[in-house]
């Protein structure tokens, strides 16, 4: 393609017959199948890809992998847009559209670059120092910073894709499909173990995709393909590509993210991403290594890249990173890049090696090609702003701390920098292992295993291909054996031995135009290129007293951002160590936390969204309520009818109508959601007696009693009515939202404290459909429906229950009331609920039967001063606070009794339940309103309580409220105030029972 000016004539694992068109920052380009967005941009000669985080310096492609700090893009638009993706990790597809996240208004002209001129104003910790005062300005600052920092934009539309999860078990999980991982998977798979091999790339091979190596006498990628074929043929081996093991949790539990799409803009017939939750007996980490950059002046200019990335682009993608290259290294491996570039016909102007007299086959091979090797030299300046134009190199003093001669200029457009390789110890560290500093490779390697994991190959600090293969093979066998399998006798794969001389550490390369110790030195020596952290920033942090690496990280932003410091962390720790005069081993690493690379919220949520996020529980009468136009309220997981508006009615109109019907005719409530627990056993009465505050032993069969349950701290936990069905058989009801908690509470006491009690508890909530009919005509309707239950007030008194038939359906009928009216709570088998409900509605029409919802239920019970647990109580209310001393037995022990006499429970000034009547009867207090006795013109004021329930009562023709108020019972008749933003409501403290104080209506 003519547009791809940097595409090599041949080579690379790309499909040159498949041209893909894409746009980047609004411009159109083409690439090939097999490209990443990064390689395609490089092939098109796009140099500046982004602006830096803080100084808005132009930045170009830096790497070829997950460590990429600069080429961070926003992929696609609209609902499927994805922010903060690394161009190196995006496989190119036709029609791709991406833009830089960090370059407003454009990469070429960036208004934020003014920061670059004002760099002295943006030192380490500048956020903390600059944006502190006044506090209210932070909102303004934040907006400006967010825009300038450009961290991508979250999609604003609902995600149209689906995500799913898989739960999997493995004998051996191998993370990484490079030579070590493949050798390990083969060794484990051949033993018959269940193996999962996961690799983040679309193709297995790892580093071999970027090298020209030989394994078992054949080209390395041929060996990779053979190994893949053998693994694929094994029944118990699962290969997951495009799958990143991002988190290592307790007991060998790992999270893997599989990307099942390449084109994120296109809808898929299946999930777009899949979260694998894998529990493995043994884990083999073969996660490889990431190259470490050298830290020199202006080492962030577009064109400065990692040396290993240069040969990745040449070998894997058939792309020339530039026309003329300088390699800057402290090790032998970078010489491979010089050779690969030279092989591809790309000019290598020089290899600049910090070491004196490097020696070995790789060095010799480079020298043999007439490539100049400057040993004992360093790059001491980079020339060019939007792109590298040249470098200055200088000979170093004997201690490497200064330049010792005049600088020499070499024109070039690409610099490949290598300071050695860092093992990817992230997962080992997440597993609880403590990484150890290795002097030879000047980096961290895995320490002793804490969980059942072993590292193999480069991530264990073993870099030569030959050793990686051996390490993978050995560790794979060992893991299989530990998982209980007998390893096969297959030989390990082999590669040639290539001698490499040790590297030489130099963490801060001197500069040709500034004295090493001069003020301002190091300001452009970038350590963390993503977060714009320089040597000077870290030294400043150290001078200001930040000595812990964790503090320096937070103060400077070292190692933060989407790349999480994959290139910058180790140099940063080394520079900090130098500033503090400590060896790196003592500086230590920051904590490696999941995820290794970003994970979408979609994948974490999976299918558990929308209606699947929480189950909805519906009663047997649910569809009737829907057809009647009910609006619903969520109570726990239950959908309860809230109220039933008729056409043209406001909410208050509907509530007034429902309330008056219940008081003057008949109301009917679906109470199926009440928790119901069946309690049986010879010790059932004794058990309930210990659970509730009142006495239960002598309750007669056929009787009901209201009970209050406390925590051991004497705070009200739940309430409800329990009926004695037989000597050893009780039916307990709980509040709708607390049913599971109460059952758990009963079980806890039975199992852990009173195992000697013979009692069995079972949830029977769903077994019964429950409906309550209440009101003066309820008895008339009831009489039409039963022949075998004597409804006479003496024969079937309040607070008792009868078994019989209602409308021909076997039923348990309770004469209990939450409204103060004559009430029958009818329980029938759940599947008969709708039939009975419908029959009651039809027959009740002549009495004016009216269905009511939870809101009317709340109003009716508030008129009677009945509490609702969770509304009048909040975990700090005792029965005495609620004025319910009458239900607290003085003669027996029960859970929470001792705490009732704790000093704090009997002190003066506790909040007590009271009623409130507003001075203006039409005003309804807002629930939650704070109450004050001494009204002041403005806050602060002493708050003495708050409104817990508040309604307009149609029965009383005025508003009513319940509240908890300090010493409320001693303040009866006092006027207090509820100050609000725009007005203050005055109210009088009254008794909490507003209606029928004498209880005259209970028998109809």
């Amino acid at each position, binding site marked *: 393609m003519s547009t791809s000016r940097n595409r090599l004539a041949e080579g690379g694992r790309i499909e040159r017959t498949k041209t893909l068109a894409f746009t980047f920052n609004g411009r159109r380009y083409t690439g090939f199948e097999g490209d990443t967005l990064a390689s395609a941009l490089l092939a098109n000669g796009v140099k500046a890809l982004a602006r830096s985080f803080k100084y808005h310096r132009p930045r170009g492609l830096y790497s070829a992998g997950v460590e990429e700090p600069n080429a961070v893009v926003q992929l696609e638009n609209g609902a499927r847009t994805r922010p903060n993706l690394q161009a190196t990790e995006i496989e190119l597809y036709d029609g791709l559209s991406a833009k830089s996240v960090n370059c407003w208004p454009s990469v070429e002209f960036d208004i934020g670059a003014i920061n670059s001129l004002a760099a002295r104003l943006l030192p380490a910790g500048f956020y903390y120092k600059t944006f502190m005062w006044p506090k209210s300005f932070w909102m303004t600052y934040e907006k400006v910073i967010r825009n300038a920092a450009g961290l991508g934009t979250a999609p604003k539309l609902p995600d149209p894709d689906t995500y799913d999860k898989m739960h999997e078990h493995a004998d051996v999980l191998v993370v990484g499909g490079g030579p070590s991982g493949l050798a390990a998977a083969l060794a484990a798979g051949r033993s018959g173990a269940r193996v999962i091999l996961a690799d983040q790339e679309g193709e297995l091979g790892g580093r071999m995709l970027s090298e020209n190596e030989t394994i078992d006498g054949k080209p390395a990628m041929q060996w990779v393909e053979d190994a893949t074929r053998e693994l694929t043929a094994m029944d118990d081996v699962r290969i997951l590509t495009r799958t990143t093991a991002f988190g290592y*949790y*307790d*007991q060998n*539990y790992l999270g893997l993210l599989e990307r099942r799409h390449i084109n994120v803009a296109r809808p898929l017939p299946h999930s777009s991403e899949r979260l694998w939750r894998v*529990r493995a007996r043994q884990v083999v980490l073969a996660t490889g290594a990431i190259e470490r950059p050298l830290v020199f002046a202006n080492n962030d200019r577009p064109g400065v890249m990692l040396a290993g990335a240069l040969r990745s682009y040449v070998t894997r993608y058939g792309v020339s990173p530039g026309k003329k290259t300088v390699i800057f290294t402290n090790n032998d491996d970078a010489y491979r890049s010089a050779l690969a570039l030279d092989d591809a016909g790309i000019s290598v102007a020089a290899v600049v090696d910090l070491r004196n007299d490097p020696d070995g086959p790789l060095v010799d091979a480079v020298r043999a090609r007439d490539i100049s090797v400057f040993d004992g030299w360093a790059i001491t300046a980079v020339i060019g702003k939007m792109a590298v134009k040249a470098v200055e190199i200088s000979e170093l003093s004997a201690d490497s701390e200064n330049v010792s001669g005049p600088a020499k200029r070499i024109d070039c457009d690409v610099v490949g920098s290598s300071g050695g390789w860092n093992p990817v110890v992230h997962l080992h560290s997440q597993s*609880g292992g403590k990484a150890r500093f290795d002097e030879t490779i000047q980096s961290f390697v895995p320490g002793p295993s*804490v969980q059942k994991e072993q590292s193999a190959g480069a991530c264990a600090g073993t870099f030569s291909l030959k050793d990686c293969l051996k390490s993978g093979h050995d560790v794979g066998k060992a893991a299989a054996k530990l998982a209980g399998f007998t390893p096969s006798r297959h030989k390990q794969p082999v590669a040639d031995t290539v001698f490499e001389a040790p590297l030489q550490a130099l963490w801060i390369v001197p500069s040709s135009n500034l004295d090493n110790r001069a003020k301002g030195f190091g300001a452009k020596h970038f350590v963390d290129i993503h977060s714009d952290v320089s040597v000077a920033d870290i030294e400043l942090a150290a001078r200001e007293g930040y000595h812990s690496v964790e503090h320096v990280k937070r103060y400077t932003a070292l190692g933060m951002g989407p790349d999480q410091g994959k290139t910058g962390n180790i140099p940063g720790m080394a520079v900090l160590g130098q500033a503090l005069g400590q060896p790196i081993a003592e500086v230590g690493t920051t904590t490696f936390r999941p995820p290794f690379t970003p994970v979408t919220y979609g994948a974490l949520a999976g299918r558990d969204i929308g209606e699947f996020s929480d189950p909805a529980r519906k009663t047997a009468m649910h569809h009737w309520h829907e057809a009647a136009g009910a609006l619903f309220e969520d109570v726990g997981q239950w959908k309860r009818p809230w109220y039933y508006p008729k056409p043209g009615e406001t909410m208050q109109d509907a509530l007034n109508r429902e309330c008056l019907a219940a008081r003057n005719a008949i109301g009917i409530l679906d109470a199926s959601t009440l928790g119901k627990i069946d309690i049986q056993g010879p010790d059932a009465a004794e058990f309930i007696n210990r659970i509730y505050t009142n006495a239960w032993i002598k309750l007669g069969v056929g009787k009901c009693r209201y009970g209050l349950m406390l925590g*051991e*701290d004497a705070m009200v936990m739940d309430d409800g009515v329990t009926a004695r069905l037989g000597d050893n058989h009780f039916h307990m009801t709980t509040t709708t939202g607390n049913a599971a908690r109460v059952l*758990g509470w009963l*079980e*806890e006491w039975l*199992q*852990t*404290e009173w*195992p000697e009690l013979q009692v069995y508890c079972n949830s029977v909530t769903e077994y019964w459909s429950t409906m309550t009919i209440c009101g003066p005509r309820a008895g008339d309707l009831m009489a039409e429906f039963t022949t075998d239950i004597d409804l006479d007030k003496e024969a079937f008194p309040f607070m008792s229950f009868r078994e019989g038939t209602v409308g021909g359906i076997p039923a348990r009928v309770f004469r209990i009331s939450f409204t103060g009216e004559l009430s029958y709570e009818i329980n029938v088998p759940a599947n008969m609920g709708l039939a009975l409900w419908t029959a009651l509605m039809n027959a009740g029409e002549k009495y004016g039967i009216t269905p009511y919802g939870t809101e009317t239920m709340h109003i009716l019970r508030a008129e009677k001063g009945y509490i609702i647990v969770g509304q009048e109580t909040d975990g700090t209310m005792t029965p005495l606070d609620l004025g319910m001393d009458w239900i607290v037995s003085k003669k027996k*022990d029960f859970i929470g*009794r*001792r*705490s009732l006499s*704790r*000093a704090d429970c009997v002190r003066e000034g506790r909040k007590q339940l009271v009623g409130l009547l507003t001075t203006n009867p039409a005003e309804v207090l807002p629930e939650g309103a704070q109450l004050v006795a001494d009204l002041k013109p403005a806050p602060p004021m002493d708050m003495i309580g708050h409104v817990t329930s508040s309604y307009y009562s149609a029965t009383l023709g005025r508003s009513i409220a319940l509240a908890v108020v300090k010493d409320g019972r001693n303040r009866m008749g006092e006027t207090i105030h509820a100050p609000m933003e725009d007005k203050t409501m005055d109210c009088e403290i009254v008794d909490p029972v507003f209606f029928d104080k004498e209880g005259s209506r209970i028998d109809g």
Partner: protein
Amino acid sequence: MFLINCPWCGERDEEEFAYGGEAHIVRPKDPDALNDEEWADYLFMRKNTKGNYLERWNHAHGCRRWFNMQRNTATHEFGAVYKIGEKPPK
């Protein structure tokens, strides 16, 4: 996520379990014999050990049984799992 060895059901994922805090807190036989401070000690005070800790777990979404387990709160290494009423391992 922990893999917890329920003494009744075997190894299950942590999400099936509910945590029950420190084990072997004995409920005083005669609460009235205790002064407020002693009662508060039973009620509120827990060891919060860094290291080996004996604690209660409930297989809430499984067999609903309570049991005791030894767990190292720093390393999440698990020791003995034993039933309610059994003595902790030495």
